[in-house]
């Protein structure tokens, strides 16, 4: 790593709207060769605008940009110089590779196009084909002609992203800007792409600006992190330091909200919500939400000041920022080795212990820990940890299979799935997209009739379609969906939406229903005046709370949460998860939690089912499954899922030996 100069220096970047309001301001970044700088922020923080401004690119509505940008010694001070630097000095890797590749260009042609567009850098025409093939090889894709002749729609998500990376590297730019490059990919693919990026950094010394909202991901690969809030950088410094001892209250809040599947703890939510561009207060933008604020914070804007070697913070009260206590490392209970002569525990014993019926191919292990597939060395787990709730199963799913039929094709979404949910308990269904977890949730809710199997609510079998269920049955199961933007009817007020299940399923009259609306809004920690609003006037987190209130309006005993926080910022997610935890305690409602995020599982669920291709690979107590996973797929997921508490030495840059003078 060169200590003598940075390959990218940005000073005082400012981008304004036509009205003069600043989207970002005072943003200064420095990137050294071979370094990865993580730019972290939630939505509205300005991270994407910052990235785009490095290219001199403005979205609609943006009027001007100012600030100095220097890349590899070249000063880019005019719109023209910024444009000429694109691809040559700075290149871009997009968030959505599927839509970012020209659908009419074959893979090799797309890379060659990039090369020919920057003819000066890429050399003579005759060499381009070979150069393009070489680039494919460098990103781990087959360099043979057959692959290169494919169109983007013939590639998987991971392959598409690699092609985008190849294009970005084509002209060997000193700086690569990556805008949430792995957000749309599943965990295993993300892991591979991250490894690829680190390898490229090591081999080619390219400096990277990695933009993301995910602290855990950035902790895996970045040596330095800059955190943005409300258009300004609020903290910047060595990655390890920022993640283990954040000084800015917002950074601390982010760290405290980020779930960790290796060291689960209660997630702490930050009060309030982020402000929009036009509503930024005078003084520190975070002050309204800050627990350490003083009067000075509200009137005066703090500067970004260095507090120790290359660690800068924009806060007056940084000394009082409390530490984030990491949770205890997740451990499985002591393990006893199975005696091959010992027969597997009969189903009856398991039912008493709160276990489940055996899965067809599964190897049954005591205490309901179940591992599918013939594993060679199966270890028996010890006594179960005590579960919340009375232990009676409110929901039992037996041999559930569900499929999709479309134009003659049949796709099995879930196969022979069995599990139980105890009263007041919480079970997580975790898996990648296509694992069948959402289909199972929908079947339980009555939206997707199963092809075979039974769903039992307090011992009573439920008809497959919600329409055929009794009012009581429908009342007792509630469901909340993933997308807050579509969860509520835009034509109905919040009050109407929440009152409807209360009136329909509990037969309340309008007066009683209105009282319920008020009670539920309070339960989900929303102010009463929200009742008169329309969904279009609420934020994503608020809408999701309303959706939860609506699901609770019928007084259910089972609440199905289908990826309810996947579309929310991490701080909002923490608040919603905290809310669910409290509701569980107050109302004794059992929760079936669908997610792809192992960290969320660790924070919320006592038991977990790991799904793959519609089949349960592994199920059991969360601590056991996450701490001592038996199934190979579970292990791969755990290894691939980023975590704040993992410092993957192989990837991580060591701290600089001495601070820069």
């Amino acid at each position: 790593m060169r200590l003598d100069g940075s390959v990218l220096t940005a000073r005082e970047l400012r981008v304004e709207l036509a009205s003069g309001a600043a989207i970002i301001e005072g943003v200064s970044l420095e990137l050294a060769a071979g370094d990865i700088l993580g730019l972290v922020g939630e939505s509205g923080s300005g991270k994407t605008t910052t990235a785009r401004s490095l290219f001199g690119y403005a979205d609609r509505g943006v009027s001007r940009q100012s600030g100095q940008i220097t890349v590899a010694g070249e000063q880019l001070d005019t719109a023209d110089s910024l444009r000429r630097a694109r691809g040559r000095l700075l290149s871009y890797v997009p968030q959505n590779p599927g839509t970012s590749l020209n659908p009419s260009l074959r893979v090799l042609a797309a890379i060659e196009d990039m090369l020919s567009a920057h003819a000066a850098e890429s050399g003579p025409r005759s060499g381009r084909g070979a150069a393009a093939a070489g680039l494919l090889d460098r990103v781990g894709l087959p360099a043979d002609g057959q692959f290169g002749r494919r169109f983007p729609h013939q590639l998987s998500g991971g392959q598409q992203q690699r092609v985008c990376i190849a294009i970005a590297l084509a002209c060997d730019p000193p700086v690569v800007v990556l805008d949430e490059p792995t957000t749309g990919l599943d965990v295993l693919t993300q892991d591979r792409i991250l490894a690829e990026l680190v390898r490229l950094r090591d081999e080619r010394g390219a400096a990277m600006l990695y933009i993301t909202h995910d602290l855990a991901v950035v902790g895996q690969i970045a040596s330095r992190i800059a955190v943005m809030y409300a258009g300004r950088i609020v903290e910047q410094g060595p990655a390890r330091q920022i993640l283990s001892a954040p000084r800015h209250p917002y950074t601390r809040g982010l760290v405290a909200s980020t779930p960790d599947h290796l060291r689960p703890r209660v997630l702490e939510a930050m009060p309030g919500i982020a402000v929009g561009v036009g509503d930024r207060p005078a003084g520190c933008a975070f002050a309204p939400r800050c627990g350490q604020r003083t009067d000075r914070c509200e009137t005066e804007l703090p500067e970004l000041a260095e507090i120790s070697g290359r660690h800068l913070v924009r806060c007056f009260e940084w000394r009082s920022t409390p530490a984030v206590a990491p949770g205890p490392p997740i451990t499985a209970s002591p393990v006893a080795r199975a005696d091959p002569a010992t027969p597997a525990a009969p189903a009856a014993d398991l039912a008493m212990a709160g276990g489940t019926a055996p899965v067809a191919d599964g190897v049954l292990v005591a205490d309901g820990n179940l591992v599918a597939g013939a594993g060679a060395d199966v270890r028996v787990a010890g006594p179960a940890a005590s579960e919340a709730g009375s232990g009676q199963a409110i929901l039992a799913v037996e041999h559930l299979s569900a499929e999709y039929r479309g134009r003659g094709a049949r796709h099995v979404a879930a196969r022979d799935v069995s599990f139980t949910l105890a009263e007041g308990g919480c079970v997580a269904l975790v898996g990648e997209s296509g694992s069948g977890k959402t289909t199972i949730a929908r079947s339980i809710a009555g939206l997707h009739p199963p092809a075979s199997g039974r769903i039992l609510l307090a011992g009573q079998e439920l008809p497959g379609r919600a329409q055929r269920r009794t009012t009581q049955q429908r009342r007792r199961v509630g469901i909340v969906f993933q997308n807050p933007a579509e969860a509520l009817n835009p034509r109905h007020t919040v009050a109407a939406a929440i009152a409807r299940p209360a009136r329909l399923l509990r037969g309340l009259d309008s007066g009683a229903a209105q009282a319920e609306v008020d009670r539920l809004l309070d339960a989900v920690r929303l102010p009463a005046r929200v009742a008169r609003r329309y969904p279009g006037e609420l934020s994503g987190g608020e809408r999701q709370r309303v959706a939860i209130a609506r699901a609770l309006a019928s007084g259910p005993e089972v609440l199905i949460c289908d990826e309810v926080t996947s579309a929310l910022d991490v701080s909002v997610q923490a608040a919603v998860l905290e809310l669910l935890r409290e509701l569980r305690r107050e109302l004794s409602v059992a929760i079936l939690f669908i997610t792809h995020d192992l960290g969320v599982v660790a924070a919320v669920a006592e038991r977990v089912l790991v799904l793959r291709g519609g089949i349960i690979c592994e199920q059991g107590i969360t601590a056991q499954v996450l701490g001592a996973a038996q199934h190979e797929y579970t292990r791969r997921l755990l290894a691939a899922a980023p975590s704040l508490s993992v410092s993957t030495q192989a990837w991580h840059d060591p701290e600089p030996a001495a601070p820069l003078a």
Partner: protein
Amino acid sequence: MGMATPPAMSAVAPIDADDPAIRAARHPVAAFLLRRVGGAVLSLVAATILIFIATNVLPGNAAVVVLGKNATPAQVHKLESELGLSHSEVRRYASWLGGMLHGDFGQSAVAVAEGRPDASISGTLASPLADSGILAGLTAILLIPLTLALGALAGLRAGRRADHLISVPALVAGGLPEFVTGTALIFVFFTALKVLPPVALLGPGQSPFTTPKALILPILTLLAVAVGAGVRQVRAGMIEVLQQDYVLFARLNGIPELRVLLRYALRNALAPSVQIIAQNLQYLVGGIIVVESVFSYPGIGTYLVNAVTSRDVNEVQAAAMILATLYVGINIVADLIVMFLVPRLRTAMS
């Protein structure tokens, strides 16, 4: 939009790129062709049935209508037997269908009633068909480049002056009925300026090329409506393509703007534009009816109108079938072209 057959609504379902049967097929092009041609044949069969029903549901029957109220029962009976009206519907349908497949469109009821020696329709169709073909063909040759060029330009310069200069007249021209536009043009170029004839009458067997001036206004009228509507649609497609991620990705990575416009934007705007052009060409099949009437141009449209006016059902059947077949045919050709332009549709999923 002032069209006899408004383009936007005339196309049968556009190519379904996500149809798993097509994607899964080893040879998507063949699978698609089979499906489309099959569908077209079904459409045409449905057309024959509907046309036949429409022309045979008259109160009274064709003979009475043609001869008028003062005909004697004997005359009616004679005409009925000459026209074969005493046979059952099914048999008449079958013989009509069979005849058409051999190029025989039956006999004109009016001609039979008048006792003319040669009442065959097939003979009388050739000239109007050719004349319409020339009119439509010349229009099409001008229509395609104009729509594409103006639409692309308006889309590329969306919101700016060039766009307004193109879009506003397009809105007006594309929205007016052909007969209004045609009449207005006649007023301007004949009544006021006296440079072009108001009608395009041709003698029997006379080629339209002998009086080229007569073609100008009919072509202009058709163009005004078709290009007006087409430009707005191409423009919208262009705007949408320019907002795609792949255009942004190319720009951020420094691909020169001209290449971005050509290879990334226009190239991907081409397929939907082909479908738009196809819809406009289909429109010509219907719009030509009114335009020929405005200018008294002796094409198949005038033929049809005269047939309807004189209630000569056999002629109506013949002209309707021809127009319907052309309409369906253009659709298939367009879909084929789109297939070649869109890689996703051509290649089987790997």
